[in-house]
C-alpha cells in the first residue's frame, strides 16, 4: 500500500485539471495571466476562486460561492416549529442531520423540552452514522484522488479496487445506521422530530449493526493508515479554531462553543461573538469573529485540536500511527483527521448500541409559546448554528442558520492566499490543481450555504 504515497508530478497534476474554459496558461512572467476555473468538481454545490498576482505578490484572492440563492431563512417565516427541521434538512443532502438536529434542538430550547437519555443516545448514534458516511465520502471518494493525481474514485477503483470497495462498504455502514434509526432513508431521514422520534428503532435492528461496526473500526483504521502515506503540501496556519465542547464526551450533538483563543460561551451567545456578513463576490454569507472581523476555522481539525483528549484510545493511537500530533495545523491533513474521527464514530456507535434499551416513549411533547431557541451541532464540516424566534402558536418569526461552509469561507480564502503565495513557481495548471485541493480540504458544502461559488487566477 505504501506506493500510494506517490505524489502526482506537476505534469500529471496539470493533466488532470480540466477547466471548462481553457486557461491562458504558460504566458511569460510579465503581463497579465488569468487562470479560470468556472466549476469546481468533487465539491458539493458550485464554487469559484479568483486570484490576482502582480509581480509575484498576491493582490487579490476571492473565494466565491455561485450557488443559486434558495432563501431558506425567508420562507421558514410563518412555518410551524414542527415543520422546520425537515425543511432545513433540505439545505444539504450530505449532512441533513446537522440541519434536522440543530433545528430540533433550537425548538426544544424554545419550548422548554428536555429530551430523555435514550433519545439523546439515538441521536448520537445517527450523527455517528452521518459522520461515517460523510467523512468517508469526502475523504476516500472525493479527496483522496487529489493526492494520487486521479480524477475520481472510479479511477482509483481501476488500480485498486479493494480500497474503493472498502470505502464504499464503510460509507454504507454510515448510511445504514442513519436508515435503521431514521426510518429507512439516509438522505433526509423521516423518523426524527422535535422532542425525539416518531418510532423508536428496535433493539434487534440496532444490534444487527454491531458486527459491521466492528468491521468498520478496522476498516477505518486501514484507510487512515493508507491515507497517512500520502505526501502533504508543506503548509501550516495558526488557526483560530472554533468547535463545540462537552464535558463528558467528544462533542457531536451538543456542548458549549469554545476556541483556542479563550472563548467559552453557551450556544445562545454564538452570534454575540461571531457574525456573518455579505460581500459582493459571493452569495454565501461569510463568518468572522465580531470585533476584529477575522476568519476562524470550524470542522474536523478545529474539533480535533480542541477536544483531542476526549477521543477514544484507539482513535488517538491511530492518529499517532499516521503521524498526527495533538494539534494539526496543516489543512491538507484534514483527510487524516476525518478518518480518525471515523474510527471514533464507529466505536462510539458500537458503544451506544451495546447499551441501548428501547424507550417506552418515542418523543417528548412540547407546548408552543412565544419564545426564542438556539441549537448547534458538529456537522461533519463544522459547527452548524440555528436560532429561531417563535410566536405563541409556535410559528417562526425569525430564523437564522449559519452553515459550516459560510463560516469557513473567509478561512478558505486565507488558506488559498497562503497556498498560492508558497506555490507561485508552479505553472498555472498545477497551481490551480493545488487550489482545488485546498478548497477540498474543507469540501465546502456549498449548497448548504444556500446562497453562490467559480476559480479565476490573474497574474500581472
Amino acid at each position, binding site marked *: 500500500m505504501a506506493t*500510494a504515497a506517490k505524489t*502526482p508530478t506537476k505534469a*500529471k497534476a496539470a493533466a*488532470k*485539471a*480540466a477547466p471548462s*474554459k*481553457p486557461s491562458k496558461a504558460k504566458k511569460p512572467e510579465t503581463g497579465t495571466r488569468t487562470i479560470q476555473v468556472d*466549476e469546481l468538481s*468533487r465539491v*458539493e454545490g*458550485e464554487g469559484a476562486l479568483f486570484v490576482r498576482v502582480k509581480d509575484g505578490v498576491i493582490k487579490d484572492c476571492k473565494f466565491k460561492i455561485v450557488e*443559486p*440563492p*434558495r*432563501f431558506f*431563512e*425567508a*420562507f421558514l*417565516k410563518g*412555518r*410551524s416549529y414542527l415543520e422546520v427541521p*425537515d*425543511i432545513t434538512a*433540505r439545505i*444539504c*443532502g*450530505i449532512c*441533513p442531520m446537522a440541519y434536522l438536529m440543530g433545528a430540533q434542538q433550537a425548538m426544544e430550547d424554545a419550548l422548554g423540552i428536555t429530551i430523555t437519555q435514550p433519545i439523546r443516545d439515538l441521536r448520537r448514534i445517527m450523527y455517528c452514522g452521518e459522520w461515517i458516511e460523510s467523512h468517508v*465520502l469526502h475523504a476516500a*471518494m*472525493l479527496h483522496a*484522488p487529489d493526492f*494520487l493525481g*486521479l*480524477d*475520481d*474514485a*472510479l*479511477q482509483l477503483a481501476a488500480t*485498486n*479496487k479493494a480500497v*474503493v*470497495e472498502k470505502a*464504499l*462498504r464503510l*460509507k454504507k455502514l454510515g448510511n445504514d445506521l442513519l436508515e435503521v434509526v431514521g*426510518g*429507512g*432513508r439516509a*438522505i*433526509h431521514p*423521516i423518523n426524527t*422530530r422535535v422532542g425525539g422520534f*416518531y*418510532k423508536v428503532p428496535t433493539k434487534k435492528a440496532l444490534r444487527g449493526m454491531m458486527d459491521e461496526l466492528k468491521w468498520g473500526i478496522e476498516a477505518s483504521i486501514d484507510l487512515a493508515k493508507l491515507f497517512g502515506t500520502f505526501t502533504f503540501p508543506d503548509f501550516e496556519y495558526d488557526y483560530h479554531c472554533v468547535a463545540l465542547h462537552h464535558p463528558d464526551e467528544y462533542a457531536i450533538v451538543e456542548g458549549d462553543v469554545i476556541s483556542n483563543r479563550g472563548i467559552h460561551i453557551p450556544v445562545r451567545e454564538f452570534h454575540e461573538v461571531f457574525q456573518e456578513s*455579505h*460581500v*459582493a463576490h459571493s*452569495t454565501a454569507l461569510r463568518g468572522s469573529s465580531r470585533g476584529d472581523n477575522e476568519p476562524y476555522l470550524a470542522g474536523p481539525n478545529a474539533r480535533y485540536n480542541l477536544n483531542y483528549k476526549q477521543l477514544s484510545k484507539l482513535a488517538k493511537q491511530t492518529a499517532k500511527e499516521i503521524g498526527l500530533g495533538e494539534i494539526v495545523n496543516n489543512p491538507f491533513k484534514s483527510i487524516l483527521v476525518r478518518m480518525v474521527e471515523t474510527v471514533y464514530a464507529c466505536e462510539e456507535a458500537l458503544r451506544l448500541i451495546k447499551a441501548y434499551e428501547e424507550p417506552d416513549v418515542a418523543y417528548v411533547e412540547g407546548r408552543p409559546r412565544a419564545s426564542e431557541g438556539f441549537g448547534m451541532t458538529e456537522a461533519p464540516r463544522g459547527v452548524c448554528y440555528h436560532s429561531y424566534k417563535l410566536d405563541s402558536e409556535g410559528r417562526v418569526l425569525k430564523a437564522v442558520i449559519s452553515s459550516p461552509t459560510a463560516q469557513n469561507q473567509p478561512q478558505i480564502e486565507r488558506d488559498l492566499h497562503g497556498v498560492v503565495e508558497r506555490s507561485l513557481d508552479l505553472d498555472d495548471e498545477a497551481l490551480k490543481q493545488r487550489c482545488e485541493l485546498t478548497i477540498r480540504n474543507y469540501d465546502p458544502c456549498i449548497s448548504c450555504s444556500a446562497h453562490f461559488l467559480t476559480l479565476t487566477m490573474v497574474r500581472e
Partner: protein
Amino acid sequence: MTAPSAKKKAAPAAPKAKTPAAAKPHRAKPKVAVWKFASCDGCQLSLLACEDELLDVVGEIEIAYFLEATTAKIDGPYDISLVEGSITTEHDLHRLRKIRQESKMLITIGACATSGGIQALKNFAKVDDYIRAVYDHPEFIDTLPTSTPIKDHVPVDFELRGCPINKAELLEAISALLNKRTPNIVHTSQCIECKKKGTVCLMVAKGVPCLGPATHAGCGNLCPSTNRGCFGCFGPSEAANGPALAKQLEKLGMTKREVRDFFRSYNSNAAEFRKTSEAYD
C-alpha cells in the same frame, strides 16, 4: 497501487466541439451526465449512495460529466442526462437549454427538478422581500422571481419523484432506459403502498393527518410504516384529489392554515398540490 497512467490527459478542456473526433468514439458504453441546478445535492448523492451497485453500474455506463464525483469531463452528446434541481436564475435557464440540446434522453431526478422543490415556496411570495430578508446587500443577488421545474422549460423524457429520489427507482430507470424499455415505476398513491405492505392506515386507525391518498408512490412506504403521516415528498400521484383530502384533514382538526402549509412544502409548485393549497390561502 500505482499512480495512474496518463490516460486521462486527453480529457477535453473546451466545452464544445473542440475535438470532434472525441464526440464519436466507437460507441462503447452509454454516456451519462449528471447536472445540478438549485438543489441540496441529495438526489445526485443517491447515485453515490448505491454503494453495493456503484462499481457495477459504472461498469455499464460511462460517467461523462458529474461534478460532484469527478474532475473528468467528456463532451456531449450524452445518452442520458440526469438533471437535479430547479430553475431559479437566467443563467441556469441557458445552461439547461444547452444540456437538452446535447442529451438524447433527459431524466429529472427529485422534487426540485420535477416540481420546483422546497425553494418554490418563493413562488408564493414577493421575491424582493425574500432577498431583503436574507441578504444585507440585495443588489448583489441575481435571481428569477420563481423556482420552476425542468419540464416548464424543455422537454423531459422521464421524471423521478421524491425528495430525495429512491435509489432503487433510479437504478431501475437507468437500466430500463438503456435497454429501451419503460421503467417499471408505479404512479399510484401512497395508500396503495400501505395496502401492499400491510401498513395499518394512520388516518383511519389513529386520526393522524396524512397526505398519502394524494401522494405519489415510490418511497417504499416510509412514513406510514414509521407511525408518521406522509407529508407528500414524492409530490402528487397520478389521480390525486387534493380538495377531497383537504376536507378530510380539516375534519381531523387541522386549521385552514395548517392544511395549506401541509400541501405547500417540498412539492408546493406541483399543479395538484398548488391548486389545493391556494384554495386555502
